[in-house]
Structure formats: structure tokens, C-alpha cells
């Protein structure tokens, strides 16, 4: 904590970066590589976490094809497609924020990150509307299922997959929004420069992963 409180404005107008671990002193390129590589390793574990849910989706879909077909038709395609556009566009603004932070344009990066967080909020609001519709209709997992529109056996299993997959994804959206807000505050404090932009890059990588998961969830749940 002492180290961060001692940080001062550099001559270039950036807050001086936190001290580099001593084993990377004199080799900032290796430090940046290690930071990025660590994030990619973490993302690999996230991919495998979601892979388990996708696996469950395919197994239950093979068991109950009629119910999955009927249930997919009862999801709101307009809301799902709007959410897809929101997440893809927020990925663009996050990539642009990274681009600006890398060039030391902290204020631009701040506003781009704030727009991304707002789009993440919009995504969650739309998801909340969809969830409340499902709760009202009784389109719920397991023994809570009471939706008369789905007559084929296995309807409750579709909603187990639907709520677990979209729920875990929504949790990731919330974490991603928190990370983006955190780096946006640091942008506001003019912390990032051409030699120090790792936090924006890593928070951005996390947000793009949230986007990647949705790219698969959208067609599997809403379209096919």
C-alpha cells in the first residue's frame, strides 16, 4: 500500500506505474508477456468451466429433442438478438478502450469503458425481463416447472440448462462490469501509458471471453 500511495505524476502526465516485480527489472517486455500469459491461462480454465454446461446441453438435447425444440421457440428471439448486438458492440468499445489506453489516451479509454459497462447493464436488464417472463409462465427447472405450452417430456431439463448457462454467464457479466469499472477509474486517474496498460488489456480479455460464451449460447438456446 505504501508503494501505491507514493506514486506520482510523471513528466509525460501519467501516474507512475506500480513497481515491477524485482525479477523483471530491466525487462518490461517479459513482465508484460507474463501478465498476458497468466490471463490466457485463466481464460482457458473459464472456457473449460463453460464447456461442462455445453456438454450438458448436448446430452439433454439428444435425450429430449422435441422439448428442446418447443422450448427454444418460446424464448424471445428479439430480446436474445438485441442482447447479442449489445455484447458484440461492448466488445468493440472495450477493444477501442484498450487501443486508447495503450497510446496513453486515458480519458478516451475511460469513456469507452463506461459505455461498455452501460451496455453490460443493458444486457442484464434485458436478461432480467426474460427471467421474469419465465418465472411468470412457470417455465422453470425441475419440480418448479408448470409451463403448459411445452407438452413434450423433458421441458424442465431445458430450463435447467437455460437457467444454469445464462445464470453463470450473467454472473460473469457482473464480474466483467466490475473489472471494467475498476480499470475505468484507473484510466480517470491517468494511470495507463504506452509502457503500462496491462490491467486494461486483461480486464478487456475477460470481457471478450464473456462475449465468446454468449456467441455460442445465443444460437444454441434461441435458434436451433
Amino acid at each position: 500500500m505504501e508503494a501505491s500511495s507514493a506514486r506520482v505524476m510523471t513528466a509525460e502526465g501519467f501516474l507512475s506505474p506500480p513497481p515491477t516485480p524485482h525479477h523483471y527489472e530491466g525487462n518490461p517486455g517479459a513482465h508484460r508477456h507474463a501478465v498476458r500469459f497468466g490471463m490466457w491461462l485463466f481464460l482457458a480454465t473459464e472456457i473449460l468451466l463453460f464447456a461442462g454446461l455445453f456438454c450438458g446441453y448436448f446430452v439433454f438435447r439428444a435425450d429430449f429433442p422435441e422439448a428442446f425444440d418447443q422450448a427454444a421457440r418460446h424464448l424471445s428471439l428479439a430480446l436474445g438478438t438485441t442482447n447479442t448486438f449489445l455484447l458484440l458492440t461492448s466488445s468493440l468499445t472495450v477493444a477501442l478502450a484498450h487501443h486508447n489506453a495503450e497510446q496513453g489516451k486515458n480519458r478516451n479509454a475511460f469513456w469507452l469503458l463506461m459505455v461498455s459497462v452501460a451496455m453490460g447493464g443493458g444486457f442484464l436488464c434485458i436478461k432480467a425481463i426474460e427471467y421474469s417472463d419465465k418465472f411468470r409462465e412457470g417455465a422453470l427447472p425441475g419440480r418448479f416447472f408448470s409451463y403448459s405450452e411445452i407438452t413434450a417430456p423433458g421441458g424442465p431439463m431445458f430450463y435447467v440448462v437455460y437457467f444454469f448457462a445464462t445464470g453463470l454467464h450473467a454472473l460473469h457479466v457482473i464480474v466483467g462490469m466490475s473489472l471494467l469499472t475498476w480499470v475505468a477509474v484507473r484510466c480517470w486517474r491517468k494511470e495507463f501509458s504506452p509502457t503500462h496498460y496491462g490491467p486494461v488489456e486483461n480486464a478487456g480479455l475477460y470481457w471478450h471471453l464473456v462475449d465468446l460464451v454468449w456467441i455460442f449460447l445465443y444460437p444454441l438456446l434461441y435458434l436451433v
Partner: protein
Amino acid sequence: MANHSTSAAPAPAHAAHQHPSIWRYFIVWGSLLALTLTTFGVSQIPMSGHAHLGAAIFIACVKVFLVACFFMHLWGSEGTNKLVFGVSFFFVATMLFFVLADVATRFTLSNSYIRPLPQVDQSILKLQRPTAPEAPAK
């Protein structure tokens, strides 16, 4: 601040990292939106369920390729990052392939849900259940 970096010597790692043009991001974004509309359009074409699933997964993979390569800067990134992403994707594909190969080739009665068999008399399903020996009629 003992180790002042000299402004004359460029940092080699950073010099090697080129800033992509800002328009690249917009082109990728436009392509992603176009692919989203494509996957929506394809889902409306009357085809078999398997064809729909295959088309949707193929388009999703193209979108993931675009996001990973350009938004996540995997294109032109260090080889180790590409290796991590490629290997995790490979393991996911392996897991899904073998699980799907299993469920696709199961004998119908071994599925967790037994669908009605149209060509078979349903009473055989009852005959397979062990029944308690009947008490002799008096």
C-alpha cells in the same frame, strides 16, 4: 528512482508491438453483426435439426475466431498464448466429440428417457421389469 529508463534507447518489446489501425476493429465488429444476422437467417431456412446445429456452430466458430484474433489480439500475439487458447479449444472439442458420439450411438432403451417405440408393442417394456411371483389363486 534509480533505474531511469533512457529515452534514447527504445524498448524492444514495445517497438515490436504494432498498433493496429482503428478501422480494423470496426471491420471486425461489422463482420460479427453480419454473421449474427446470417446465423439468424440460416435458422429460418427449413432444414434438418442436425444441419441447423452444424451451421450454427460453424458460424459461432467463425465469430469466435474473429473476436479472439482481433479483439483479443491473439493474431500477432506470443505463441504461448495461441497455444493455451488452441489447446483449451481442442480439449473442449474432444470432450464434446466423445460425449456426443456416445449419446448418438446409444441403444434406445439405454437412454435416460425412453421414447415410445412406434414399431414395437409397448407391453414389452413392462415385461422387462422384474415382477413379484404371483400368489397361487385360491
